């Protein structure tokens, strides 16, 4: 075992040497493209959130980067989502953020308002080449005129369903032009069918979708309401929220949603991933995770329900942004790494759609899409729903992480029956007032 490791390291070192020699001999494929020209030895810190699978993909990409840029060493770390933001906030307080970070739209405003993130615009066109990007997507990382983040990929919402479970219940998947009421009817039908999963648990239609803040935002956009104003205030009222929560009231009452006590116990899994709920709304890049967690190959995706005017009014959410800490001592090297992760075709192949569909054209093309593979299906889904994507993504306000979590928490209480819809709405608004001030 040990000897094998040593041999492995030896081979890797030798390969690295050879490759380094090659790239310096040929003057490097990248340094011609306006990359960092200095040969100064630089060490960059980099961090992301995600599971082991993502970590091994990142490591592969970083190895490749270090081969191409022998003077730059990257020190990677990673965490799960919750711990990630705790660590970043403490680092921000000490002005010691990593040089390069994977970032999320929800926290962008908080960090940028206080000048913790580097404005990347001076490096765009120099180290960073965004020619293969959709302009609107690049724009989503601009706050107050500063390019503080650049998205790696896009996500959009989808309805996932499990045809195997549906077959057992004898209920058909909703038709493409279904609306929210149709979806409710579908959930009730599945739950009433009385079928049981392999482990003997009853099969339910879906978990309570009204507990998820992003679905509320999607619903608002369909009503023609822009959820957030530029000044950080809300475009929706207490009545809007009440109306959305009422959507699920009958199903909650009748016990047709996936039972909350079981859902709480399954965390971080859910009813859908243990094959006890037939459908679930989620982000389309979850497909890979769903297949892996549930062990069910056949999971299908379809667009979101239709709004009152017959439009689905969906949006692409820029995701997995890359940002640099304002405190970085090597902004050019950081920009070089960001460019590599964003645009290097080989990186597109390494990650596939595990972070969403790549935003860069060259990376999209470099993905090896096997017919029927998960990557191919996610890409196909985004192409297929493109006609329904008619709205810009609501840009999260400051404190979004807190108000999103509060929405979920109150949704849980609503399902336990410990609070009413009115209490939900008033608690949420008083909490939101504190969080977004």
């Amino acid at each position, binding site marked *: 075992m040990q000897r094998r490791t040593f041999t492995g390291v030896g081979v890797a070192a030798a390969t690295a040497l050879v490759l380094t020699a090659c790239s310096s001999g040929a003057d490097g494929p990248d340094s011609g493209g306006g990359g960092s020209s200095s040969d100064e030895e630089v060490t960059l810190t980099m961090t992301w959130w995600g599971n082991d699978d993502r970590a091994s993909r990142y490591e592969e990409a970083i190895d490749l980067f270090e081969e191409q840029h022998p003077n730059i060493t990257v020190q990677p770390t990673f965490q799960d989502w919750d711990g990630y933001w705790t660590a970043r906030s403490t680092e*921000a307080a000490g002005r010691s953020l990593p040089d390069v970070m994977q970032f999320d739209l929800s926290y962008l405003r908080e960090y940028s308002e206080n000048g913790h993130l580097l404005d990347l615009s001076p490096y765009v066109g120099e180290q960073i080449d965004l020619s293969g990007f959709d302009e609107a997507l690049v724009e989503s990382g601009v706050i107050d005129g500063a390019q503080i983040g650049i998205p790696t990929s896009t996500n959009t919402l989808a309805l996932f369903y499990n045809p195997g479970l549906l077959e057992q219940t004898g209920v058909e998947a909703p038709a493409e032009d279904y609306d929210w009421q149709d979806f409710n009817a579908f959930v009730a039908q599945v739950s009433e069918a009385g079928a049981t999963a392999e482990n003997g648990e009853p099969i339910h239609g879906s978990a309570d979708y009204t507990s998820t803040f992003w679905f509320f935002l999607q619903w608002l956009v369909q009503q023609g309401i822009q959820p957030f104003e530029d000044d950080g205030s809300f475009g929706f009222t207490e009545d809007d929220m009440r109306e959305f929560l009422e959507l699920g009231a009958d199903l909650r009452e009748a016990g047709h949603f996936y039972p909350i006590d079981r859902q709480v116990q399954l965390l971080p899994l859910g009813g859908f991933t243990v094959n006890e709920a037939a459908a679930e709304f989620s982000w389309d890049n979850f497909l890979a995770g769903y297949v892996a967690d549930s062990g069910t190959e056949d999971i299908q995706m379809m667009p979101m329900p239709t709004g009152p005017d017959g439009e689905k009014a969906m949006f692409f959410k820029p995701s997995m942004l890359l940002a640099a800490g304002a405190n970085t001592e090597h902004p050019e090297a950081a920009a070089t790494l960001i460019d590599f992760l964003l645009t290097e075709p080989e990186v597109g192949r390494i990650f596939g759609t595990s972070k969403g569909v790549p935003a860069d054209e060259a990376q999209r093309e470099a993905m090896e899409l096997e017919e029927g593979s998960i990557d191919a299906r996610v890409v196909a889904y985004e192409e297929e729903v493109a006609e329904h994507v008619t709205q810009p993504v609501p840009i999260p306000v400051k404190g979004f992480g807190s108000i999103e979590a509060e929405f979920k*928490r109150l949704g849980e209480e609503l399902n336990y029956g410990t609070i009413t819809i009115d209490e939900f709405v008033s608690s949420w608004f008083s909490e939101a007032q504190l969080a977004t001030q």
Partner: protein
Amino acid sequence: MALTTTVTRTGGSAVPPSAARRRRRAAETRAGYTFLTPWLIGFFGLTAGPMLASLYLAFTDYNLFAPPELVGFDNFRMLFEDPRFLQSAKVTGTYVLLGTPIKLVAALAVAMLLNNSRRGQGLYRSVFYAPSLIGASVSIAIVWKAMFIDRGVVDRIGQGIGIDWGGWVGDPGKTMPMFILLTVWQFGAPMVIFLAGLKQVPTELYEAAAVDGAGPVRKFFRITLPMLSPVIFFNLLLETIHSFQIFASAFIISDGTGGPAGSTLFYTLYLYMRGFQDFRMGYASAMAWVLVVVVGLLTLLFFRSSRFWVHYSGEAK
């Protein structure tokens, strides 16, 4: 011994003895503080400093990103209007009031059983102490969750004896008993202290009582309890403070949410959520100081009450 050698060495010099002593004492003081340095650095850098900083932050609005802003008593005022704060106080209070006495009674009962000498004594003691060794760890919380979840061991036992109580983890009414069982199970530390206390009770007292015709119950209440009272006091104080600090198991079992329906929203967990999930450090610091004051007052109360019920055998009364 070091003292005598120094005395002999300096004895022959011309320096007046008092000055020499003073210098020697100064040198010893210096050496003492030098050896204390690691602890002092730790105390001021990691305990006293941060505590003072948090006292200041308790009066500010601080989100980690922007510099703190003084807001007076606002945080404290908001605390007592915050339904979740009151919920966390209720949950923690229930836990302390129920968990601590039950744990101590269990510890004392087992200590008395183990006090009789019989074969395999050492083994029994180690076995009963084992849960406390691994007690506060994350792994035990995970095991606990797995045991009390739907279709877990406890659920199956329930079904075996004809009770369908389901998984406790997802039922807001059953999470508190689950946590109390967890803390009671870790009775090892107070048990060992009780055991040591029991060994100290003079056997003559029991013999005399037996001669006078006292039964085991009477012996327990008239001899064991009074003689053990200093140890009970010590354990009660320690375990109460310890109960207030419950965090890791609550964090793991509720997945960091305090759920289901706020039933595991322990004080320190809520403090953590406010500080590190919502980034409201001022608010969290205010919570921490309210806890310090409450625990301090309780400790004071314990000490004040102790002279009415704690009996020190050396005392002339």
